[in-house]
């Protein structure tokens, strides 16, 4: 009876999970073996979508390559940036630290679409303010920032500092840094350790569980929600240069109506996210300290 009551109370969550998470995941896996254009019934084609994705010359290779590049660098850059800012905010004797916190966090709450359109204007080759300033410095041939493949891939990485999860990470790092016992720093100072050594030997190990948490969430965010940054900023172009897998899934499912193909991509994305998270947790045993 007791167990029955417990099941009754958790049933809304179980129902929600089955209907809105578990069910769609299973449906996505099943649809990945079909051809379906949202008209009529899906037609079973076995592993056809997967062979098409991984065949030689498939554009999916370009998509995967960019996704890997974007994930590695955007995670490194945004986690590094968030940690750097949080460390600055925790520095001694900084006046107006709350004001700095406000300004560091404010880009994270600006809607992404508005932000990307602003950057489209800032980075416009002919009318953009960035090239306007560069021309003052004597640069004759100013870059076409958002269409040069070698440049645009770095721009989308750097702009990650404006995403919501980067702002969120600053707050999490900030609170973690405040929890590091002060006496450890005092003892290190007495022993003659400089700031950098203190950061390396005390701060990093002490906040390593938080670092792991931020890295895992940033990786998953980068893999799955890169869409909100890339779609309005570059739409995946030029060509497929900035087409991340999340963008490609949307494009194939809702713009070319190849739902089965998009589901196969989703299954692959799910596999990549699971594998990367698993590897992070496995390797974390060597560098994450849960007790200081």
């Amino acid at each position, binding site marked *: 009876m007791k167990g029955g009551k417990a099941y009754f109370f958790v049933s809304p969550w179980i129902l929600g999970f089955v209907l809105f998470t578990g069910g769609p995941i299973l449906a996505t896996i099943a649809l990945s073996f079909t051809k379906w254009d949202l008209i009529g019934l899906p037609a079973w084609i076995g592993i056809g979508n997967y062979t098409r994705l991984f065949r030689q010359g498939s554009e999916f290779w370009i998509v995967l390559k960019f996704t890997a590049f974007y994930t590695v660098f955007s995670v490194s850059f945004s986690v590094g940036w968030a940690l750097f800012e949080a460390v600055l905010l925790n520095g001694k004797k900084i006046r107006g630290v709350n004001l700095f916190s406000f300004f560091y966090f404010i880009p994270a709450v600006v809607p992404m679409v508005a932000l990307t359109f602003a950057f*489209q204007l800032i980075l416009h080759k*002919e*009318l953009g303010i960035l090239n306007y300033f560069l021309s003052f410095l004597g640069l004759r041939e100013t870059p076409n920032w958002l269409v040069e493949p070698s440049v645009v891939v770095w721009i989308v990485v750097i702009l990650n500092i404006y995403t919501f999860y980067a702002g969120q990470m600053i707050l999490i790092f900030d609170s973690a840094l405040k929890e590091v016992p002060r006496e450890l720093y005092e003892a290190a100072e007495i022993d003659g350790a400089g700031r950098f050594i203190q950061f390396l030997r005390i701060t990093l190990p002490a906040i390593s569980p938080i670092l792991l948490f931020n890295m895992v969430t940033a990786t998953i965010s980068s893999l799955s929600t890169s869409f909100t940054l890339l779609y309005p*900023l570059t739409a995946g*172009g*030029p060509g497929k240069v900035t087409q991340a897998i999340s963008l490609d899934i949307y494009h194939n499912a809702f713009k*070319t*109506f190849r739902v089965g193909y998009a589901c196969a991509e989703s299954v692959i994305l799910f596999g990549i996210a699971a594998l990367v998270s698993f590897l992070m947790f496995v390797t974390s045993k060597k560098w994450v300290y849960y007790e200081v």
Partner: protein
Amino acid sequence: MRKTLFLGLFLLVFAFTGVFAGAKTVIKYAHWNALPSDPYNYVKAFEEKNPDIKVEFMQIPEAEYSQKMRSMAMTGTAPDALCLWEADLADFVRGGWVLGLDDYVKQSAELSLDDFIPAVTQLMKLQGNLYGLPWCFATEIMYYNKDLFDKAGIGYPGMGWTWDNFEDTAKKLTVESDGKVTQWGCDAIGFQGLWYSLAGTFGDKIVDEQGRFSMGSGTKEFLKRWFDLTNTSKAVASPQITTSGVVSADLFMAGKAAMAFNGSWLTSVYKDVKDFAWDIAPLPKSIRNYSTLHTGFFAINAKSEAKDAVWKFIEFRMSDEGQQLINKAYSNPSARLSILKKGYYKVEGPKGPRNWDAIEQTAQFAEWGYVLLPPGLTFDIVKDFNAAILGQVSVDNVVQQAIDKAKEILGEERVAEE
């Protein structure tokens, strides 16, 4: 007890008859645009004329309109009165989700198929029956800065303009200062449809009579010439990133480009320009005159339980009164020739446009073209065209790439080989 039961039954019958006496037929209607405010609210005007019909309107954002309509149709929850884009109409016909309108039009005292722009009957031939009526139309045209033309002493473009005229003029109107271009002959292509319309002027069918994707030598020739204009003579500005086919900065509007190609709907944006005089012209001709038409089709949900009421609603929106409201509200012309001539859509600004003939002339030769294809395919190809103009991929390769993509997405049977 019997008395109570009798009284209850009486009240029930009375309530029902009361409800039915004042009952209205309710139809649901979806559109990507919000309803225009008074005095152009065509739904309100219809309800006033038809007090027995109530229209429940829902706005679905443009970016997700297509997939939302499909999902709703699939689950049997689509609105009664539909407005479908060209590519969607074909799929809805295939899914059996829309009703043929041939009989309705034949019986209509208001409408006649002879009164529509030629592209409507062309689409009807392609689909076998009439499934939708165009709510208005837009097309792709050329915009030009009259002040810059006057300053250079160059005659304005018009119906007879060729690609050679365009290229010569674009070069003459390009101004360099200190080795840097300060005024472009023509802006980069902003709206994705123009790639297809301009390629079409070089002879490619884009979509042939059987509804197949058809691009090849004409597209190559166009891309080569556009590449030269962009990179060699620098008369055309470098491509900018486009999201959903629209660039966020406009050199023509900024007065820095003498010409631009874009959709006719931009007349309603440019009309607010106060700094320079401007006008419109048909696209220049290479091998033939060509442009792309855009519309949405009023259609009836095959599962609707109020089909006749929906037809009444369509008939009203296609009538002179309904078209006048729609044309004025959205600055788009009517696809009905008799109403097109009345020019309800002409909303002029202080500096332009004046040459409205450009739109009516274009309507005579414009085709549905690329809009009959899935938007994902056409947008993807445009990103590759941009890469070709930037020199990241060769023109020959990009056209072959486009054909391969079309085969993969549409199937080999829907791609015409040259």
